């Protein structure tokens, strides 16, 4: 890669109490690249994204966005950096005091000071892209199904056309057809709009569709990363077990027999 990476993480550490969640993460994401992070439930994938966004404070290591160090950044400068980001939360995290379209248009109205009418039109377009009709825009988030909430969250994340977009399990809870639509939408955002994407998914089919590169997180470290084409050919036993979803292998799930 000749251009400097959009996101560059070195030795990132984060623990909660005695529990080490991230234990020295090294990861680069190039401009316009789409990286998918895979890994078992509870390995710290969501925590990693929140550390990059500054929602959680890293205990150590370095995170550079466009070459600028963001660990320990003051809040005013952090706000400036955050304008580059869009984020789909795992739980969607819709504002329940606002209607659906106001949720989608929030970043445009509050962040970019766009007029409400104009922002609403963009919101409706974005909702259409995730397969939701204009009327849905008038509902409140409490009136939506889980999958619909997820899609509204996705529409909100891409509405401001950010430079970097994070998708935390974008297709979990969606039917296979809608999953495919969302995968294609993510690819479109990244390829056509030139954004840089980092996605978390448990669905290997959508990982193959979305990713240029896949990174696997296990016990606080990136234990494998490489182009999508390599994932099926790789001999790494952890990756092999995860990709084929086998209960037996080097990854021990914390369940009592």
């Amino acid at each position, binding site marked *: 890669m000749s251009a400097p990476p959009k996101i560059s993480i070195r030795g990132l550490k984060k623990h909660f109490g005695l529990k080490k969640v991230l234990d020295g993460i090294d990861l680069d994401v190039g401009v316009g690249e789409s990286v998918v992070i895979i890994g078992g439930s509870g390995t710290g994938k969501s925590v990693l994204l*929140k550390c990059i*966004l*500054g*929602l959680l404070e890293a205990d150590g290591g370095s995170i550079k966005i466009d070459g600028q160090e963001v660990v320990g950044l003051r*809040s005013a400068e952090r*706000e400036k950096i*955050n*304008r580059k*980001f*869009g*984020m789909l*939360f795992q*739980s969607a*995290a*819709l*504002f*329940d*005091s606002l209607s659906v379209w106001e949720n989608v248009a*929030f*970043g445009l109205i*509050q*962040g970019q000071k766009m007029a409400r009418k104009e922002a609403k039109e963009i919101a409706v377009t974005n909702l259409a892209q995730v397969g939701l009709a204009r009327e849905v825009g008038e509902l409140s988030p409490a009136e939506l199904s889980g999958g619909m909430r997820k899609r509204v969250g996705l529409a*909100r994340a891409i509405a*401001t056309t950010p430079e970097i977009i994070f998708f935390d399990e974008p297709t979990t809870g969606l039917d296979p057809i809608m999953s495919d639509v969302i995968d294609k939408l993510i690819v479109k955002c990244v390829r056509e709009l030139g954004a840089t994407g980092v996605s978390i998914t448990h669905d290997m089919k959508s990982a193959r569709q979305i990713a240029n590169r896949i990174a696997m997180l296990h016990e606080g470290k990136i234990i494998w990363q490489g182009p999508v084409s390599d994932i099926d050919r790789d001999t790494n036993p952890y990756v092999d077990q995860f990709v084929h979803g086998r209960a037996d292998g080097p990854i021990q799930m914390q369940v009592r027999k």
Partner: protein
Amino acid sequence: MTNPLAIIGRIFLHFLGVVGRIAMFTGVSVSHCFRPPWFPALIGRQMLDIGYFSLPVVGLTALFTGMVLALQSYTGFARFSAEGAVATVVVLSVTRELGPVIAGLMVAGRIGASMAAEIGTMRVTEQIDALTTLSTNPYKYLVAPRLIAGLTMLPLLVVVADIIGVFGGYIVGVYKLGFNPAAYLKRTFDYLEFMDVFSGLVKAGAFGFLISLMGCYHGYNSEGGAQGVGRATTNAVVSASILILIFNYAITEIFFATR
């Protein structure tokens, strides 16, 4: 572990930690009250919630407080034939003390709880995180409007509480204790000074600020799902109520000294 000095020391350190965190939270929140952008629509909604929708509760409690005050002070003053002072005692007690404190405690229960629950739910469902990623500062968007509304609306509520409280005293004085209406009113206003009302309104402003501050602080820092939000709600109401009584004494003392 069992050394009592160590336990006291630990509690004291914990207390200092909490005070420090609240002070920092207050500093950041207040600084956002003075810096644009402001959110007039949000401030308006909070004002409506705190000011207008608290009117029935505050009015009702003020009415009965004024009424019982007239009865009780009559009982006391009748023992040394000073019944004429009832009207004056009612108006001074209500404006200086009971109006602000009763309105404050009532609003603490109503508004402090709902603020902590709303902001706490936003915290545990990651909505506050989402605000940040949408380049909106949660202090500015959530906390500042509530502080401004609390600070401005409580004095207005207390003006209403003062009027209704005095009216309650008047009803009992005239219809039960047999005072002459005109004489009662004259007694009410003859000895009332500007500082009586003013000190009460200063208290009200402080209480309104404290209620919003506690609601926001506990909501903002809640963790651990529905249970955590429940705990935040309780803490908000209890801490606001205690602070109201402490500040009530402190402010009274200041006005007492500058009499």
